[in-house]
Each structure stands twice: as structure tokens, then as C-alpha cells.
């Protein structure tokens, strides 16, 4: 089981607040701290903010990004550079931000989102890619652009052989594609819901409210591993969540008395 803090909304957060919450996450034995951009409100820079936060804490840092709003190679480059600056501690959560599409003059068709994920996965794989879709042609091989190669590669590559990236599940068809491309699946916790099935070595992710109880998460996980990202708004809430969740998630049948003092 893995335990993350956040995603902390970047809308109102200051650097001091981010570092305070992240420091509390380290002290409470969280595995990762997450930040979230909100491009519908003009708040971008999720990966840059993650790169910033990674300088303050030794744990992994995740960025929940509004994807599908601009060319996927820019996202691939942001991921690679944030990962390199952090020494390989970056994780990602892709959210399909239809609500921000008009600000970005981005397509909203399902096919665009699928092509976006395909190109992103291809670029991050290190392959020399060529992609021909209805929305995306990579490289574009525009006749007026000469010389331009038939294929391109993301350079530099991320530090990690495979950066763990989850896609927020919105529909079954998309979930299948995301899995086929090697992305983990994330969902919002609801009472009675299950952790999404793992993709390869990436466990399913559940985005959880701050007051969630360990038993509910263990039930959601069943026989599987789970990655639980817990919302918290203050260092005290972070500490409380850590005390409540870290032990039971890491050891089956942890006696309650051991953490009750």
C-alpha cells in the first residue's frame, strides 16, 4: 500500500504553505506529496511546482495536471525535466480538463484525448516516434519545414526508466486505452468502491477525503495493493491522517493499541 498527501491545490497555496504541508507529510511517513494545477482558473505549472517542492522534501512528488489542452510533447518534456531535477522522484496524474479547453482553444473530441495519450506514452518510452492521427501528426512533416526528420525522440529522457503516471478514469473505453499504454488508473474514493485494478506494476489509485478511515481503504483494496492519496489542509490534518492510516495500511491486523498512545 502506498500513501500520498494531496493533491494540494495550487490556486491559493503559497510556497511556505506547500513546504509546510510537504514537511508534515515527510514527518507523518507519507510516501509522496501531490500538487494540482487548475488551468480552468489559470493555474498551471503543476510539474514546475512539483519540481520546486521536490527541492524541499526527500519523498516522491506528484503533479496532477490538466492534460489534453496543448501538445503532448510539451507535457512529456515537462515530466522529463521535473523528473531529472528531482533525481527521479516525479509522479503524474492526468486529468481530462474539458472545462479548460476553451481557454486553450483545444479540441474536446475523444479522439484527440486518445491521440494525446498515445503520443505522450510514446515520447516517454524513449522510442523514436512517428504518429499519424486525425488531430496529431508527430513529427508533422510539414513540407515547408525543411530539414525536418521523419521521426523524433524526447530528449533528455526522464531519470526514471518509467515515470509512474495515472489517468483519472472517466469512462471504461478510455480506461482500457490508458491501461494498454501502461498508465495506472485513478479514481475518486466512494464508500463501497474498489481500488482500480493495477496496470503492470502501478497499483490503482484512489483520491480520498481527509477523514477516510483505514478500514475503508483496506476494504477498497481487497486483495490488491492500493495507492491512496489523502486530502489534508493543515499540517495537523496531515499528522492525523498519517497516524490513522500509515500503520494499518502497511501491516495487516495491526493492533490498535500500538498507535493509540
Amino acid at each position, binding site marked *: 500500500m502506498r500513501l500520498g498527501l494531496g493533491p494540494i491545490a495550487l490556486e491559493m497555496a503559497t510556497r511556505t504553505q506547500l513546504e509546510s504541508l510537504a514537511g508534515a507529510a515527510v514527518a507523518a511517513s507519507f510516501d509522496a506529496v501531490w500538487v494540482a494545477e487548475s*488551468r480552468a482558473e489559470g493555474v498551471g505549472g503543476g510539474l514546475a511546482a512539483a519540481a520546486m*517542492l521536490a527541492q524541499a522534501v526527500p519523498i516522491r512528488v506528484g503533479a496532477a495536471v490538466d492534460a489534453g489542452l496543448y501538445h503532448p510533447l510539451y507535457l512529456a518534456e515537462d515530466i*522529463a525535466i*521535473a523528473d531529472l531535477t528531482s533525481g527521479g522522484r516525479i509522479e503524474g496524474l492526468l486529468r481530462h480538463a474539458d472545462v479548460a479547453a476553451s481557454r486553450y482553444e483545444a479540441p474536446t473530441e475523444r479522439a484527440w484525448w486518445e491521440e494525446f495519450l498515445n503520443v505522450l506514452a510514446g515520447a516517454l518510452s524513449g522510442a523514436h516516434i512517428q504518429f499519424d492521427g486525425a488531430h496529431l501528426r508527430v513529427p*508533422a512533416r510539414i513540407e515547408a519545414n525543411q530539414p525536418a526528420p521523419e521521426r*523524433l525522440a524526447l530528449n533528455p529522457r526522464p531519470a526514471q526508466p518509467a515515470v509512474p503516471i495515472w489517468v483519472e478514469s472517466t469512462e471504461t473505453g478510455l480506461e482500457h486505452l490508458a491501461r494498454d499504454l501502461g498508465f495506472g488508473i485513478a479514481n475518486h474514493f466512494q464508500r463501497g468502491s474498489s481500488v482500480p485494478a493495477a496496470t503492470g506494476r502501478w497499483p490503482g489509485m484512489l483520491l480520498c477525503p481527509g477523514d477516510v478511515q483505514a478500514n475503508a481503504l483496506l476494504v477498497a483494496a481487497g486483495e490488491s495493493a492500493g495507492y491512496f492519496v489523502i486530502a489534508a489542509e493543515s499540517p495537523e490534518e496531515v499528522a492525523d491522517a498519517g497516524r490513522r492510516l500509515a500503520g494499518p495500511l502497511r501491516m495487516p491486523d495491526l493492533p490498535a493499541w500500538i498507535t493509540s498512545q
Partner: protein
Amino acid sequence: MRLGLGIFGMQSVPQRPDHHVKLYRDVLEDALLAESLHFDSIWLSEHHFWFDGYCPADIAVAGAILGRTTRLGVGTAVMLLPMHSVQKVADDAATMSRLGGGRLSLGVALGYRDAEFDGFGVRRKDRGKLMDAMLPRLEESCRAAEPRVPLYVGVATAVAAQRAARLGLPLFADSTMNPAELRGMLDAYNTAAAAAGVTPPRTHALQRDVFVTDDRGRDWAMLLPELRYMRRQYGGWSFPQETDETVPAYLQRLELDIEAKLKNLIMGDAAHVAGRLREFEALGFDLIVCRSQFGNLPRESLHRAIRGLSQVRDMVSP
């Protein structure tokens, strides 16, 4: 006069390859050194899809530097705006300016390498039109950001300067322009600003190749392969090999360009460099970003040059 330190591309160059994890660790160390020596700022450069891993995502690096430092400014020198989503740039910059306490600056320019435009599905020939459309939007966003994001327009030609002038934006002049060319460009800028009814900024920014040394012979031998690689790379992007041109003929053509560009390098002891920089200050440049990192210099040599440049800073802005 403010001195910035630059420009960092985190390249694993053929003559001195390194893993990129180390190169990014190095630039964070360099930023800390720059902050400890009271430089105004550190500046990052951008290119895409190049085998040496030239940094393609400046704002992500800026985030790491802002996280590692507390006072140092961080700038892009320059971001190749027409290839980007201007909304993404604006939103990223506004957020990082807020988180970084107003320490982020943007320098933006056209870009020129066809393969980069092609990667993002943009016609290189459209770059001027795109810049015309994007720059006002970005200027508005940078002005509205809290704290405001200083925005500079990277230029190497009078036409590009005139575009900036119409918006009253300060220039970030290219390192390859000599004083006469800079004077001509500033004249064109001021004329265009007056025609547009715009009050021009009092000062501009300039990039210069600068290497402070107390042993020119030793350091020139060390620098020359690095400078040659850098200039061959930029020259190769600016003037691609023609289809009917042999490789030897092409390299000869590039060599002429390299020789011309190397003449603009300012190299010498601190007093010499300070004197040369004051000439540019007199032209109207109050921020000079001194490029002392060419490719991937030996760490000891780079740090010696940076410390030497801090002596220059003490002389020009005590």
C-alpha cells in the same frame, strides 16, 4: 547595471558527456553559487529534440531553482514562444511567479530550427505571425500576474525589435550582435515605438558571451572546443546544409560563421570585462546576462569563471 548568469542548457555534449541527472544537479549547485555571490539572476535556454538533451522545458527547471534558492531571479533566455501554447506559458509563468515570490522572468523569441517547429506541428514560416498574435496575449497575462512577470523579447534583428517596440516591451538582445548592430537595432526600436505612440522602456537586457580569467592561454585552450561545438550547433540550426552542398563545404561555411561569432566573446580579467560591459550599459542595457557556460565546461573552470564574474559585478554595480 545588473548581472545575470547564463545561459544554461544542461547539454550532454559529445566532448564532455554526462548523465542528465548530474547536469541538473549541477545547475542547481550553480544557482546556489550564483545566489551566494549575489548575482541578480540565472538564465536558462531552450531547444527541443536534440541528441545532447538541450533543455526543452525551462519553466520546469526554473521551478527547481526557485525551490532551491530564496533570492535569486530565474529567467528564460529564451523561450521559443511560437512553438508553445501561449496560454500554457502564461498560466505556468503566473503560477511560478506567485510561488517563487516574483523571481521569474520570461525572455521569449521566435526560434529558428525547422525540426523543432515540425515536432509541434507548426510551420516555421508562420513564426512571425504567431509571435504577433501571441506576444500581446502573453504581455497582458504577465502584467496581470501577481507578482508581475517581467517579459523581454529576444531579438537579433531590427524587424524583431520593431515588434517588441510596438508593445513597449524591453529587448533581450542576442549575444552575437556587435555594438554597431545593437545601436542600429535600438534606433529601429525607438523609431517604431514612437510611431506606435508607445513610451519605450528606459533600459533593455543583453546577452553576452563572457569568460573571466586570469590565465587567458590556459582557458582559451579549454574553451575553444566548447565554443566551437556551441557555435557549430547554433550555426547548423540557423544555416542547415543545402541539399547540393558537400559536408566539407558546409563545414567550411559554418567555420566562417563561427570565426565571426567568436569575435564577440569578452574574455579577460575582471577589470577588462567590466570595462567592456560598461560600453553596453552606455548603449542602454541595464541587465547583462553573461554566458559563461558553453556546453558542459569542467566544473572547476566554470566556477572559477563565475567567481571572477562576481568580481566584475562588484565593479559595475557596487
